[in-house]
């Protein structure tokens, strides 16, 4: 267990270095830089050159990269030009807001998805099973931005039940926050819910046909226990791997959802950073996403070990 964690932490170093260099190069390839954005569209080239020199952008790209990496080792992720705040603090203040909707969305997706998948596996070819098939197909193929815009159109514009944007404020009570969360969470949860339903269904179908399930019934266990304790635990591994993948996708996918609903999380911050060529902020945010992804897969491996006693590392 401890060895696994160490191994994973060591693996983190090359991953982070690769992510760092790729984002670094890509941000420099995009036309325009912070100096030109800051100076404005019709600025004097001399002013731009002066700003570039001030920001260190006149140095060669490898040189800039070395400076950036050595700064990171000193714990300095740079300062955001746009927000005029240290990148590290900006990210720290935004992460909880993104987690708020991604976690809630994922938990809802996990619970409803596995429930739907299990029920449709148990009642193969029933109407609920057909519903599950159609739902998984739709959930996997409808793009998030379309669902987002349509749900705003329906629930906010037409029905006027829910707010369209922002996060609300706790001063206006818990419902204010919740009502703002509802649509983004719904939007985020549909695709993973479909995936969970499909994975659970096929995994459950494999499991319930096993001899030991029949043997458990022959021993007179309650059907509820046979399914939800024994079959479910055996069907769990594929669901856990999907959960790991979906966590990563949701967290990075929040860029879209947050922009649609103007949710003040990592996603909106990243797109603002990209639009304003806020180099330090883009790099910092992408780095954070990479670290979150690696951490999630480590946690998933640990969960694997806990549910399957055969896996010992």
């Amino acid at each position, binding site marked *: 267990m401890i060895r696994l964690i160490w191994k994973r932490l060591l693996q983190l170093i090359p991953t982070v270095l690769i992510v760092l260099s790729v984002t670094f190069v890509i941000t420099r390839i995009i036309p325009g830089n912070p100096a030109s954005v800051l100076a404005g569209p019709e600025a004097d080239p001399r002013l731009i050159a002066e700003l570039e020199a001030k920001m260190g952008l006149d140095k060669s790209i490898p040189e800039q990269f070395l400076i950036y990496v050595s700064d990171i080792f000193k714990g300095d992720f740079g300062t955001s030009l746009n927000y005029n705040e240290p990148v590290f603090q900006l990210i720290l203040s935004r992460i909880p807001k993104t987690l708020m909707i991604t976690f809630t969305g994922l938990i809802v997706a996990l619970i409803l998805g596995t429930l739907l998948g299990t029920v449709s596996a148990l009642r*193969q070819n029933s109407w609920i099973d057909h519903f599950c098939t159609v739902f998984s197909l739709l959930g996997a193929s409808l793009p998030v931005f379309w669902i987002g815009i349509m749900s705003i159109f329906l629930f906010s514009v037409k029905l006027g039940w829910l707010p369209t944007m922002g996060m609300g404020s706790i001063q206006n009570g818990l419902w204010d926050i919740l009502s703002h969360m509802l649509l983004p969470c719904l939007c985020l949860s549909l695709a993973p819910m479909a995936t969970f339903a499909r994975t659970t269904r096929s995994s459950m179908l494999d499991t319930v*046909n*096993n*001899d*030991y399930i*029949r*043997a*458990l*019934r*022959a*021993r*007179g*266990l*309650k*059907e509820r*226990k046979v399914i939800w304790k*024994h079959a479910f*635990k*055996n069907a769990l591994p594929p669901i856990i791997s999907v959960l790991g993948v979906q966590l990563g996708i949701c967290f990075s996918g929040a860029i879209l959802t947050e922009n649609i609903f103007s949710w003040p999380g990592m996603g909106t911050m990243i797109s603002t950073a990209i639009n304003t060529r806020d180099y330090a902020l883009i790099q910092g945010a992408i780095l954070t996403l990479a670290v979150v992804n690696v951490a999630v897969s480590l946690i998933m491996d640990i969960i694997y070990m806990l*549910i*399957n*006693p*055969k896996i010992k590392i």
Partner: protein
Amino acid sequence: MEEKLLEISGLRTYFFTKSGVAKAVDGVSFDMTQGETLGVVGESGCGKSVMSASIIRLLASKSGKIVDGTVTFNGTDVSKLSREELRKLRGSDVAMIFQDPMTTLDPVFKVSDQMIEMLQAHRNIDRKTAAKECIQALADVGIPDPHKRFDSYPFELSGGMCQRVAIAMAILARPKLIIADEPTTALDVTMQAQILKLLKDLQEKYGTSILIITHNLGVVWQICDNVMVMYAGKVVEKANVRELYSNPKHPYTWGLMDSMPSLNDTPKEPLSTIDGIPPDLRLVGKGCNFRARCRYAKQCCEDTEPEMVEVSDGHFVACHFQSKTTNLVKGEENRNDG
């Protein structure tokens, strides 16, 4: 007259598949007394396992349905039991042991969890007392170091050990009947002998009846009181084990007995077999099911289904040419009229 523990009459279990109705069990009747060991023999796919699973209404596939017949266990009609009553019957009064011991235990729960859970499903008992009983049961079935095994996962045990655990679980609730579906098929020969002896010992200790499904006649000679030969969903011969051994009547039984390898066989000589394969269970029904593979078959075998007749005391055969008056002799030409 001894008390009947299990009475089955006219049991029919059909599988409704897209390509037709497979008559896996087609009119099986028999009964068992307390303490009896009944062996059911026959080729693979002749309906032995389905028949035994039908007793506790636990079919592996959803397409299978018990369409007719009654199963009376200990005086109660099993088909009239509610789901909850049926659940209580399973595991407590009727226990089942399956063929492949490596797959009958849930791989992700410890032996202890599964045993305690089973006891708790039938009795109001706390974990500590239950654990004590379980460890005792493990010791009873000859598992060395039961405390350690009790705390193991199934994959940490060998096949023979798993089967012992399965048997320990089967006797845990002191059932009146144990249905053993090929309990030794997946085990090596020495382990087979040990498991059979164990079953026999437990039977003597607790007076349990055992219904043992096998395709190994050796097993039957070793532990059974009575034997039932099944072919294509039907019982073709039924007798006391000594009677059947010395005086088999049905041509299929002859074939089965000839197919048994013996130490006296000439080496390198091919083993004797029954020619052909069992019929497609979707097509059986009219006439004698064995006719296509039977060298004694005549026209009547094609036309009418043979009735079960008692040829001597307690010896039943379903063959047109076997009755108290007519007598087909093995190896001789069939002189009866077709």
